[in-house]
């Protein structure tokens, strides 16, 4: 579980969700740009950051509507081709956000949807991470969400370490006899 000081968890909770207020709230007019008085009316539909929506939902002051990243259009995109969906720019915290949202919203299909998306993207990511070189950033990396990017980096760095290990210097004495050198293509 992410800790109190975990920066990516804090930034993830800043994602906006659309909520419907069940109660009115005074003195918080800044939340609703359309209001004239300094308060939010019951039944108003507002975009709140997730940390606020989460707490208010727990106390049943609002109800959260499912954001577009888990909606029908997204499901269709994933069905078509999961690996091409651009999570990096649109929803970098896709998986974590889904996991936190899931208990608050009544939709039971989010969990299996997350797993299905991840499984389909994983295969492509695995093969790309093992063949990618250290300096070039393949375009496909920009499409990964934050967690996928961490996995990608872990795989890439372990591949680099493996290659270094294969050519490591064993500290053997260099002889002057030049034998038949076997060319190993490692770059």
């Amino acid at each position: 579980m992410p800790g109190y000081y975990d920066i990516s968890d804090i930034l993830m909770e800043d994602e906006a969700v659309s909520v419907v207020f069940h109660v009115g709230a005074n003195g918080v007019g800044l939340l609703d740009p359309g209001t004239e008085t300094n308060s939010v009316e019951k039944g108003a539909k507002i975009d709140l950051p997730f940390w606020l929506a989460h707490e208010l939902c727990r106390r049943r002051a609002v109800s959260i509507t499912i954001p577009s990243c888990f909606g029908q259009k997204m499901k269709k995109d994933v069905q078509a081709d999961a690996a091409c969906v651009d999570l990096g720019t649109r929803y970098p915290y896709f998986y974590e956000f889904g996991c936190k949202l899931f208990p608050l919203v009544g939709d039971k299909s989010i969990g299996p949807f997350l797993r299905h998306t991840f499984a389909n993207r994983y295969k492509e990511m695995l093969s790309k991470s093992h063949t990618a070189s250290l300096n070039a950033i393949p375009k496909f990396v920009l499409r990964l969400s934050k967690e996928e990017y961490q996995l990608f980096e872990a795989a890439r760095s372990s591949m680099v370490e493996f290659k270094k290990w294969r050519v490591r210097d064993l500290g053997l004495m260099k002889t002057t006899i030049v034998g038949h050198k076997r060319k190993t293509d490692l770059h």
Partner: protein
Amino acid sequence: MYARRAAQLLQELSSCEEGQLPPYNGDKFDQVIRECEEHSRQFQSLIRDKDIETKNEDHYGSFIHHLSIIRNKRCLMAYMYKRAEVIQSYRWNVGRVLPREIQDKLNFSEQEYFKDYCGVIDSYMKDLDLDLTVDMVPPKDPYIRVRVLSEIGEVSLGDHAVSLTKDSFHFLRRTDAEPFISQGLMEEFVE
């Protein structure tokens, strides 16, 4: 309002590379603190003379202000904590003296923190009679060939003095050479 500035502070911090710090953004930090004071004022005005138990509009409004303050606090704490972690790592990776560019990025209390942290590490190492900051990677060889990059002058290492002039080569013990290498004054000479 509502912790957006605090999130921007953290964005700035997380967009830096691992182990690097952006300059201390004192202005934004103070703005976030002023926001908290504003939330607190609003909270006080909503709570005044009201019965805490009744869940009316004022109650929810004050609750939102309370949550905003908690959120701002969490963001600011995480900002300080992450910077403190990086400052600690500077002692191990860079050494006792920080180069000018790094010092300019820290504010006054962070520089004090660095000095105190160095003091704690030094007193611990004195008790152990062991320098923990050398050999972070286990070395293969106790001796190392080095080439001096900038003029250092006469240095006494162990029982003899070595004159470290620019572009001279020496064969030193690894523990003696490491502090100079981490400051960038020497480099390892690899055949």
